[in-house]
């Protein structure tokens, strides 16, 4: 057999996305939750590139490029927010960031 079935790439993408969701649900450190979001974005990028191969078009690469740009901007702003929250509350645990609840 020469060549990998396209479905394997898509299933790998689904597995990585599920692991990202798992990290998002089960972790408490806000930095790790943020990294799980990056993991999910990467998984979606993989399926974009795989579909781009299947359709023999470059459009999927452009979408991946834009996702990368937005992820970089999001990381800069999100980490600045984490810095500010840590300065004000000196905790990284998301369970303790509940001032909007009470």
């Amino acid at each position, binding site marked *: *057999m*020469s*060549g990998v*079935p*396209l*479905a*394997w*790439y*898509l*299933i*790998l993408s*689904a*597995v*990585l996305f*599920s*692991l990202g*969701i*798992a*990290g998002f*649900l*089960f*972790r*408490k*450190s806000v*930095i*790790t939750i943020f*990294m*799980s979001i*990056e*993991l999910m974005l*990467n998984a979606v990028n*993989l399926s974009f*590139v*795989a579909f*781009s*191969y299947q359709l023999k*078009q*470059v*459009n999927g*690469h*452009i979408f*991946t*490029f834009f996702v*990368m*740009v*937005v*992820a*970089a*901007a*999001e990381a*800069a*702003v999100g*980490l*600045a*927010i*984490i*810095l*500010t929250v*840590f300065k004000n509350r000196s905790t*990284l645990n998301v369970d303790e960031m509940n001032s909007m609840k009470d």
Partner: protein
Amino acid sequence: MDVILFLIFAIIAVVSAVNVVVQTHPISSAISLIGVMASLAVLYLLLGAEFIAMAQIIVYAGAVMVLFVFVIMLLNAGAESKRGRSLMAQLLGMPLLIAFLALASYFIQRLYPTGAVVRFGVFQGGSAQSVGMALFTTYLLPFEVTSVLILIAIVGAVVLARKELP
């Protein structure tokens, strides 16, 4: 050869992703995430996306992860406590997650049974030339809007992270 390379790097990616989730120390998670991103770059190369693979290494594994590691060290983040979060998330989240994964795999298998096969070198349209051509003709407006987005992100990050004025 394609299959062997795919399997090697897919296994590295999945193991690193599991490591991201199960490690308690944020810096271990960050290092594992770099492993995921690097192996995904190899998979992009196998899919013929040269430009995206290089951008993945430079932007993700380089810039974004350096930012993460920098913030982890700045905040001196230690290992998080082992105490479970809400019981609801674990009881409800795990079965739903497995159901989602099973459903997604089932439909992917149904959509692409065996006919669609990825061979290295068949698709040549991922070079910097063709990506740049599409980016600066068809997608020129989104590209320009992106520059505004990045400017706003820079200003927002500086405003958020600066010292409070007295």
